[in-house]
């Protein structure tokens, strides 16, 4: 049964993630396609109306787009529910505040969130398998609005034949590379970038992930949870984990090998006070003003325009958790 996203009906959930074909963490494409096909299969098997929204941020010139690889290698049941937004590379240079940071993961996710169609938006990553509990809840459609759903991330041992990973592999604790983690209230933080689910209207009201602080990828996910809490949303554990394929260059791998140096390099400074400040993005968050061009079925290209670029510095966008703007409070 094809999900509703194959028709004009809005899907129940938009699954937003971001990536590009740059060999991140080893064989990125294999991990991406394996997890994508697994998740698609499980969502379709349960009749969950969904769409995938992939944001390809500043793609590598000359390398095939991930969207092209999906079209070439995945079944039509998957591609029918798969949309891509490609973001011109000039945006990365225009918005950066840290040349060390090679990828603006959360600005990219905001692009996808802003353009999603589902009643609920689930942001995750390109190497994550959705767990039983999450799929059960999506099938039952029992998510509630104004609630941020979180899930613990369990790291799977890296394997060569990722395409053969099934429930037997996922459910076997021996295949975990680190102890199972649980999330603790009130923030349920820890690996938030791998699973955040929220109704689209609330995502819009809180204006997505932090676009003001662009010096790091690390901590932006946890900062979103603090921001959501300060905006009056509830944070809950969805009740089950997501499974992440461990790989080189992941933050946790780097942290275990070079403690204290995990903040260097692609993730930016991991020690900024992400739990002590919140933010307020401008109304045109998610590059809302970017000129859009349809470049294929279910494929949009964001052309570069300075009009869409957020200001280099917007200090008024950094606020204290206890001092949310009255306009923001009124909206919620």
């Amino acid at each position, binding site marked *: 049964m094809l999900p509703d996203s194959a028709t004009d009906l809005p899907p129940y959930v938009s699954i937003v993630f971001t990536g590009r074909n740059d060999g991140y963490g080893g064989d990125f494409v294999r991990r991406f396609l394996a997890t994508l096909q697994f998740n698609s299969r499980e969502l379709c098997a349960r009749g969950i109306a969904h769409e995938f929204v992939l944001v390809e941020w500043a793609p590598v010139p000359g390398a095939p787009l991930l969207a092209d690889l999906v079209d070439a290698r995945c079944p039509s049941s998957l591609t029918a529910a798969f949309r891509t937004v490609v973001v011109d590379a000039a945006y990365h240079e225009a918005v950066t505040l840290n040349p060390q940071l090679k990828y603006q993961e959360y600005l990219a996710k905001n692009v996808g969130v802003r353009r999603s169609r589902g009643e609920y938006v689930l942001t995750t990553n390109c190497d994550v398998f959705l767990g039983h509990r999450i799929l059960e809840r999506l099938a039952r459609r029992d998510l509630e609005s104004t609630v941020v759903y979180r899930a613990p991330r369990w790291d799977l041992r890296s394997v060569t034949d990722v395409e053969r990973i099934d429930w037997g592999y996922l459910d076997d604790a021996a295949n975990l590379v680190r102890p199972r983690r649980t999330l603790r209230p009130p923030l349920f933080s820890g690996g938030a970038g791998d699973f955040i689910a929220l109704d689209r209207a609330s995502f819009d009201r809180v204006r997505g992930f932090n676009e003001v*602080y662009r010096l790091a990828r690390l901590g932006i996910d946890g900062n979103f949870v603090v921001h959501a809490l300060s905006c009056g949303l509830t944070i809950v554990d969805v009740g089950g984990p997501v499974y992440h394929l461990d790989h080189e260059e992941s933050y946790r791998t780097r942290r275990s090998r070079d403690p204290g140096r995990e903040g260097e390099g692609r993730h930016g400074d991991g020690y*900024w*006070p992400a739990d002590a*400040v919140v933010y307020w993005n401008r109304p045109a968050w998610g590059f809302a003003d970017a000129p859009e061009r349809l470049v294929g079925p279910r494929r949009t290209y964001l052309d570069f325009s300075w009009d869409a670029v957020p200001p280099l510095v917007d200090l008024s966008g*950094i606020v*204290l958790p206890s001092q949310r703007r009255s306009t923001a409070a009124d909206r919620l």
Partner: protein
Amino acid sequence: MIRRLVRKLGFVTLGELLVTQEKLRQVRQQLDTATDRVARAAAAREQLKRARREEEQRHKDKLAEMASEHERRRSRIREAAADASKRIAALEEQLRKRDLQAEATAREAATVDAGVVAAVQDLDLARQHLMAIEVKLDILEGAANVLDTRVRVARGLVADAPR
């Protein structure tokens, strides 16, 4: 017949006289006995009366003594009650003063608590401000570095441009 003649003459026979004397003697004896009994009874009654009077007197004395003792005890109890009342009054006064002291101490403690809570809140707010300033400085530093790079690149382009 002689007996009838003697009786008509007002005389009695010797037998009758003896009998009568015997009877008289018996009667006198009985009378003596009775008299003696009466006297004894009277004496006993007197004795009993005396005993009763003495008993009454003893009771009266006893009662008087008991009344006196009772009075003494009442007096002692009144004195003790008066003492106790004075002590109770003194203790109540002490208690009242302690209550006032305790209230004053509690008010002081509440003021200190409120001060501590306010100080903790101020500290938390100050920490948030500090963190916000740190983040803003990071942003400014990042922006300054980016602009510096762009200016250098632009100057390099200008310098390299053909004249």
